[in-house]
């Protein structure tokens, strides 16, 4: 098993974006998503695109990783564009190609919609690229904290997430071990029809489930033995602190928002 196994897409690094408080990143992304829908002019789109691309470059994450994150949605982006191009018929006919008329308005609409889509995905993927899952968990717990008044189980949710993260590598190692053990007994995972291969998964899944339940039970006992009795009265060793750079980023983002709104038509 790879020693430096990374969960999800996180690419460790030391850029400004990496070192920001995860709450800063989540909040900026949240408002960015909203602001993207306000843009409606060349200038406003230009500012937001420059901001998103600039941020992506500032993370110093290799662009191939960024592209990988976008891979599953390229199809959607292009599909949205083509759908608008061929289906909606608004505005003047711009030109005709092979007897098919292209309308100006649908070209613009398709373009802006795809651009919006691209910006949203690009910017949100920067969060998972530059923030470790446990930091994201901490940030979610901190940001959802006000919901506690509404009896929303914030602490329990965060604990569930962090325990899942903790056990992903363990269960992956176990799955590997079981699949080897079953293969040595003659289970064939690689050949045969799709149905055969699907049913070959069962002798892998059942032992994995059984052991996961056993682990859960033992973990619960160990947690209780160590005095765990829910989130009440608990302190945390992982602290989130807003530094000057976070305030700077908020300020900078505010100016971007202002500029976007200001250049709307």
């Amino acid at each position, binding site marked *: *098993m790879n020693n430096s*196994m990374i969960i999800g897409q996180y690419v460790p690094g030391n850029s400004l974006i990496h070192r920001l408080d995860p709450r800063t990143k989540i909040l900026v992304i949240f408002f960015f998503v909203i602001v993207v829908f306000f843009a409606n002019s060349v200038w406003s789109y230009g500012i937001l695109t420059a901001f998103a691309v600039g941020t992506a470059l500032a993370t110093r994450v290799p662009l191939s990783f960024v592209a990988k994150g976008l891979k599953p949605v390229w199809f959607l982006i292009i599909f949205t564009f083509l759908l608008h191009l061929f289906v909606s018929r608004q505005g003047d006919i711009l030109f005709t190609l092979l007897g098919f008329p292209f309308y100006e308005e649908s070209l613009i609409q398709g373009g802006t919609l795809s651009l919006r889509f691209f910006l949203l995905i690009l910017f949100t993927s920067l969060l998972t690229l530059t923030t470790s899952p446990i930091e994201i968990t901490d940030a979610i717990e901190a940001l959802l904290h006000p919901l506690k008044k509404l009896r929303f189980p914030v602490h329990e949710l965060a604990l569930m997430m962090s325990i899942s993260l903790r056990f992903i*590598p363990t269960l992956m190692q176990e799955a590997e071990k079981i699949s080897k053990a079953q293969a040595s007994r003659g289970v064939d995972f690689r050949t045969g029809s799709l149905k055969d291969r699907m049913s070959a998964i069962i002798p892998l899944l059942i032992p994995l489930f059984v052991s996961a339940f056993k*682990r859960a039970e033992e973990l619960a006992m*160990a947690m209780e033995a*160590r*005095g*765990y009795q829910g989130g009440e009265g608990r*302190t*945390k060793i992982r602290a989130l602190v807003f530094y000057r750079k976070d305030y700077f980023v908020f300020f900078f983002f505010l100016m971007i928002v202002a500029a976007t709104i200001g250049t709307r038509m």
Partner: protein
Amino acid sequence: MRERIDFSDVTFRYQEDAPPVLKDVDFFIDKGEWVAIIGHNGSGKSTIAKLMNGLLFAESGDVSVDGSVIHTDNVWEIRKKVGMVFQNPDNQFVGTTVRDDIAFGMENHGVPREVMLEKVAEVLRDVQMESYEEHEPHRLSGGQKQRVAIAGVLAVAPDYMVLDEATAMLDPKGRQDILETVREVQEHSDLTLITITHDLREIVAADRVIVMNEGEVWFEGTPREVFAHKDALSTIGLDVPFVAKLTQEMKKHGISFDREPLNHEEMVEELWNLHSTK
């Protein structure tokens, strides 16, 4: 009020119609002692561990810690006093990194963050894992995970530490490391140690041994006294170590030692003594 763990006539069963796992078990563990509880599988030794910090409650009889009988009201106080390390290194690692895991117990007890950071560094030194603070569990060996578990217990400064078969799933090297760590911790603290095991080699360093069989206390004494009963030990399903077997065989040939050797070094020493007094 005496500072000790006291079992008085404790009976326990997992289901009402099942035969009892513990039958009128009666013993005490004084503060500062190192007591080994040994027995084969199903002798009730792990049940004893769970009764000690209120993970289970006695059916009849009392389990008390420092004079107060464990019941549902004071169980959280008791758990602060009695720390536990379990058998499976993976299934008791709660945090995503070594530091988070060691802090887990302290977080539960509401220890302030600055104190926690200091304490984590301190207990990591105690178990010789200083450079592993940021490591994730899947980058640690089983023995290292168990040392982290011990550190996590030490961090909340309990009076008693129970090691429930904590070395059973480790390789010989990891086992040796754990025993070494435990011995060192015991040496420079007044921590009471209760080690639960089925391996006779692990009782050697203890002050006192309680041998369990079929849910009853079968024998109580020093490791040396236990080793002297090796014939009987094998009848209750315990593996007798090589040194003890050798002593036994030599006795059959009319060679007896002044004291029961517990390990290879003592055996060699006894043999030299024998040789020089002859």
